[in-house]
Every structure is written in structure tokens, then in C-alpha cells.
């Protein structure tokens, strides 16, 4: 591989370091009583309120409709994600230093598969929270479920839930695009030869 492609590949791997600091997904809730806003930021290793108290307040609101409490400590995915991302970073760097075009493609495919699995898992998690309701809940609306959208907005009783990728997601996307470019440009270089 060309030197500049190796550098680009290393950058692609290192972009993923941002995932340890920036949220990948955001769920914002809008309601008249919350003029200051309320919502959650999802990181690879935790779920935090947009304000420190938001998680407690969302759990408080959710108990009326019988949703399970969101307890970041008991969500397995948040434990698996950090080592998986670490694996991606390390293998990405290995590919950058010693790899070739094929290795770049293999890394990229693994990354894309991982992203798809992640999104599916996130959807299933949302489905479970939104559908698996306590039969003793104070508020029961026949036929109503509370699954937040994977992406976009949805009205859930008095709340409008808006689910969107956050900054961390765009770092991951940039990493993906950059490694894709490396593979593509490397292919061109080959043909030119």
C-alpha cells in the first residue's frame, strides 16, 4: 500500500477512539412540561441523561406506563462494546502498518457487519423496552406500545420522542468511509500499475 494510504487507514482506525468519549445515539423527548428538554445520550459503554437527572426522571415517567427501568449497569451490550471497538482500532492499525488492500476490505466488511448487528440489537432492545410492560402499570392505553423509533420521531402519549445518531456515530461513519476510500484508491493504484 502507498504510504499516504497507510496513514489514512491509521487515521480511520484512530477516529474510533472518539467513541469512548462521544455518544453514538441520542433520544430526545419533547413535552410541554419540559421546556428545558429531557433525553438520553447512548455511549458505547453507558447511557446518560442529557442532564445528569434525566435518566432518573425518564425512569420515573416510564414507571407510570410500566416500562422497565433503564439501568446502564445491567445492559450487557454496554459491556461488550468497548472491547469490540478496541479490537477494531488495534486491527485497523495493524492493517495500516502491515496490511494490504485485501486486509483493508476484510476490516471494512467486519466493521459494517458489526454496525448492522449493533443497529439490529438496538432496535430489539427498544422493542423490548417498549412492549414488555408491567401489567400493574397505572396508565394502560389499549393497544399502545412505547417503542421509541430507531431513527426519526414518534408521538408516545404526551411525549414526542426523537431518535437520531449523535456525534460518535459520525466519527464511526467517517472511519468507515475513509477506510472504504483507502481500499478503492489502492485498487486504482493497482490498475494504474
Amino acid at each position: 500500500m502507498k504510504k499516504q494510504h497507510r496513514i489514512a487507514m491509521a487515521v480511520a482506525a484512530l477516529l474510533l477512539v472518539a467513541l469512548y468519549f462521544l455518544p453514538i445515539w441520542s433520544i430526545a423527548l419533547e413535552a410541554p412540561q419540559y421546556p428545558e428538554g429531557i433525553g438520553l445520550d447512548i455511549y458505547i459503554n453507558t447511557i446518560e441523561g442529557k442532564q445528569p437527572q434525566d435518566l432518573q426522571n425518564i425512569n420515573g415517567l416510564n414507571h407510570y406506563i410500566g416500562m422497565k427501568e433503564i439501568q446502564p449497569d445491567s445492559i450487557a451490550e454496554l459491556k461488550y462494546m468497548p472491547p469490540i471497538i478496541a479490537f477494531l482500532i488495534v486491527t485497523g492499525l495493524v492493517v495500516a502498518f502491515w496490511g494490504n488492500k485485501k486486509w483493508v476490505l476484510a476490516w471494512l466488511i467486519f466493521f459494517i457487519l458489526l454496525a448492522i448487528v449493533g443497529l439490529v440489537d438496538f432496535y430489539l432492545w427498544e422493542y423490548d423496552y417498549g412492549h414488555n410492560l408491567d401489567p400493574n402499570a397505572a396508565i394502560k392505553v389499549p393497544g399502545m406500545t412505547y417503542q421509541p423509533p430507531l431513527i426519526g420521531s414518534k408521538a408516545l402519549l404526551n411525549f414526542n420522542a426523537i431518535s437520531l445518531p449523535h456525534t460518535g456515530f459520525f466519527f464511526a461513519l467517517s472511519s468507515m468511509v475513509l477506510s472504504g476510500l483507502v481500499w478503492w484508491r489502492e485498487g486504482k493504484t493497482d490498475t494504474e500499475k
Partner: protein
Amino acid sequence: MKPAKYKTLLWGLPVVVILSLLMYGCPSQQQLGSTADAAQKVYVAPGEYDEFYGFMSGGYSGQLSVYGIPSGRHLYTIPVFSQEATNAYGYSEESKPMLNTTHGFVPWGDSHHPELSQTDGVPDGRWIFINENNTPRIARINLSTFTTDEIIEIPNSAGNHASSFVTPNTEYVSAATRFSIPMDDENLNNEDVPISEYKEHFKGTLSFIKVNDEGKMEVDFQILVPGFNYDLSHSGKGPSDGWAFFTSYNSEQAHTLLEVNASKNDKDFIAAVNWRKAAEYAAAGEGRMVKGKHYRNYVDHNTHTSKSEVIEEVRVLDPSELEGIIYFLPTPKSPHGVDVDPSGQYIVAGGKLSTVIPVHSFEKMEQAIENEDFEGEIDGIPVLNYDSILHGEVENPGLGPLHTEFDDRGNAYTTAFISSEIVKWDLETTQVVDRIATYYSPGHLMIPGGDSRKPWGKYLVSLNKITKDRYLPTGPELFHSAQLIDISGEKMQLLLDFPTEGEPHYAQAIPADIVRQNQVKFYKLEDNNHPDAVKAEDETRVVRDGNEVHVYMSTIRTHFAPDNIEGIKVGDKVYFHVTNLEQDWDIPHGFAVKGMNNSELLVMPGETRTITWEPKQVGVIPFYCTDFCSALHQEMQGYVRVSPRNSNVEISYGTGQ
């Protein structure tokens, strides 16, 4: 021919009718135009904020009311010197110590003059101080939570009226005796003497309360002064920084029928105090320590709990022994307000029985002191020569001038109580330039920053003493009335009337942004170190300790834990320690027990409050949340089973079992 002529005249009649209608219509049209203009100036659209926070003393309510300006909307009332059953201030165990004094627990106070803390002579929005006239005290209110943080009692004082005015960097807050009292020579203790021996025994004190960077107050020194009535005060600024001015009346030293006997002298005095020099004397250990027991009550923010401490001694400076700390400026006729203009150059007195407003010049005062231009001496205090210190007299200022505030364009505004008007005059020329009627009989007036170095000279609020027909009547007792006046133009313009709680003596206002940005929305549960707090429901419990039962209870939407309690007996003293586990803005929970000889609790998110209950009747007693907290608020209730004194029902409790 003749009839035809008349006919033409008749043709003209409609013209006359239309013209006269127009002329009749014109004035009311104009008035309508100006009313619409005024309405626009005070209109704060739904969801929008007022330009200024206004703080109006509650007077005999003992509290401090907060209003939005220019809308006149009542935003909040801060409990200060009186118990407030609404939120258990002075009822809860955590807040009761705030009202401790050397006379015991005093449930009521007469608040008078709020003043914002200042930095470089400009209101800074950290705290607001307010004095209590009846049982002399000064309170400091925290403007990030709008709660009373500290109350200090003023020893050797009675009728703390000339208070609580701050120095330009909040080094000191002032206090003084409106009612002189007998003071023994050794310890200034009040004495059992015939009232008729007033001149012999009665004295006054001017007190300087030091404020440290955290706001903690301490009586640094008191200056012993002749037995007059000390009425109002203001600090110097700019060139006069380092001085404070106190009006006095009753230099006649009357002790009965003061309305006649204290109105005889042509001139009383403004006491000019060189507080910086006095502070130096105090720091150097001059004067003497006397027994002057007083309370300092303060909130421990770690536990949200107020505590009392007793201070036994106080330093007294005697001006007959320590030179240069105080001078008397002769001032006509029982002066009330004393106000220093933004430049710090002019000292304006409101001689309430005077036909002029005297304006003293600070520069001339300093010269007179240097030249020893004295016309006499009272108890070792030099009396300066009136003519040597006068800048000018405002002629024809209205009847009964009381108080003056300033704008940032060189104008002064004085209330005239008797002629019920506000008079605008030019500080340099002392000429009256405008006047406007008020409804009725203004006492104090307030311009945002109008007693500081930086007036925001857009609005003026007149704080009127008499209301009568201004609003829909409410029987014999009426709220006082305030009037908002636009002072941004040449002519003053009346914009709005609004009723005010209690009796607003003085008031203060500050641009809203300065205070708004510091607001606390709720208390962090993790920072709540109250010894009786519960941080989670699994910590809630009921513990018997002899006749005392402690209920460690939590509230969160929408239940109490525990909400069923048994094993309480007649004759027990039950302490409900209620922690509000909510961590959300504006979600307090209330707590009330049927028949409790006490107030309710209103517990802010993250806070712990304790109320005591001594059940007297056997039965099952309900309790409930009083603040509509959520859709299931009506479900937020519980029961306490009260058994006979000799019963052996064990303590048991729970929620949801």
C-alpha cells in the same frame, strides 16, 4: 327672503354638531393613545420575561416580595422574618433556628429596607439584605435560591430602622437605633429607669456589620451616639466612599407625644460617619468590648439546616474618645431619607416637615471638617456649619419630601408624601424640572440601581402608602399600591398600578439576567448531607426511641415510603423527616397530617425537612401530598395508625405490601 336666509343657517347646523363632537372626542382619543402606549411598555408577552427583578420589602408581613418589572407581576414571596405556613419556614425543625433571638423564638418581624449587595458600588445580584425594625435584626438572602441564608441580631439597639444599607463593596451593612433606649455606662445594658429620665439615660448606637466574601455577617463595631432617633442611612460612594450618612430626628430628646415634642427644632442632624476610620480604630483594638449578647442564625448548606450561635460581646467606639469618626450635619426639619447621588458628591435629605430639600456637598463637608468650621458640639461630636456645607436647596419640592433616588442623567426624583407627587429636579441647578401625581402618598421610591453608582434609569416605582379606590375594594384592609413610571423621557409618564403585599417600604431592582443565570433548579440529592436524609426508598424506616418516633420518609411521584405506619401511640412525639427524592425542576412534594398542630411541609427536590406531630386521638390518621405533583397526585397519600398510650402495637411500616 328672510325664511330662505334662516334655511341656509340651518344648513350650517350639522357642521357645528360634527365640529363639537370632534372637539369633545379629541381629549379622550389622546388619552386612549397614551394608555395604549403605556400598555405596550408594560406588556410582557406570555412566556417572555421581565426586564428587571424587583424586590419589595413586605413591611409588616416580615417578608420580601419579588415582582417582575415592568409587568408588575408578583413572582414570589421570600420568607424572612415571619413564619410562613405555606412552606414551613419557621415551623420545620430545619428552619426554626432562623427566628431565634435573645428574646426567644420570635415568629414575626417588620421588614423594611432591602438592599442588594454591591461590587464597586454597583448591585451584583449575589445577595439582598433586609432589616427588621421591631426586634433589631438583619437578614441576608441568597439570590441563587431566593432563600434566607442568615439572620444576625443587633445588640444594644431598638427599632432597627436606618438599615440595611451596604457600603460600595459590601464591606459593611448598616444598622442603627430608631428608638434610643437606656444604656448603662459599663455594658450598655437596658435599664430599669423612669422614662422621664430620657435625657439622662437614653442613648443610641450606629452599628456596622461586617460581611465576608462568603456573606457571613458579624457586628464589627457600634458607635455610641446621643439619644436621638436615627432614621435612615446610605453609604457614600466615589469620592465619599468610606463614609456613611444617617439621618436623625428628635434631637429634642422627647419621650412622649413625639409628633409635637420632636418637631420643635428648626434643624436636626445627618450623622456623617467615617466608617473606614472607625474600622481602623476597631481593628487596632480601640474602644472597648462590652457584653452584648446576640444571635447569629445561618443555614448550613451541607445539610440545608439552620443553626444558631450566640455571640456574647461587641465592640463599642465612643466618639468623645476617638476623634474624627463622626460629624453632625445640621439639616432642616426632622429629616427622613438621606440619599447619596451616583457621583457620590451630593447628600440629599428628605426633611419631611421642611419646605425645601437641602442638598449637602461632600466636598464642602470635607473642607469644613478640615477648617474646623464647627457651630457647636454634642457629646463630643462636632456640628458643622449648615451654610458652609450646603450645595443648594430645592425650592418648592412639594409637601412632605421623604426619599430621593437618581437616574443616570443627573436628575433626582423625590417623593412628596403630603402633596402626593414625585418631583424631578436637576442635581446641579437644584431646579424642579417635572412633577407627576401619585395615588396616594408615596413613601419610598425606587429606580433600578437608583441608590448605587449605576442607575438603570428607565423606570421608577413609587411605593405608595394609601390605596383607597385604586383597585376593586377588599373590605377595610387593602394591599398597598405601587406605581410604575417611565422616566426615560423629559416628562415622567405613569404606566401601571399594581398592588403589593404588606407594606413595601424600600425596594430594589436589578437587570433580570444578572440574577437569572445563577438560579438553582433543585438540590442535588448526592450533596444532601442532612443526618436524617434518606437517599433511596430502601433507606426509609420508622424508629422508636422512648416517646419519640422518627419516621425517615421519602417522596417521589407518586407515593410516600412508607405510606402505612403502625405502632404510634397517643403521647408520642413523631418526627417526620421527609426527603424528596425528585431531581427535577419544580417538583416539590407537600406533606400534611390531619389535625397536626403545625404547618404542612413543602419539600423541594433533593431536600430533607422535618416536622413534628404529637397525636392526641386514637384512630387511623391520613396524610397526603399537598402539592399537585403529577397525574396521580390524588393517590399520593398514606395512613398512620394511632393506638392508645398503653397499647402494645409494635412499630411496623411499609409501602405496597
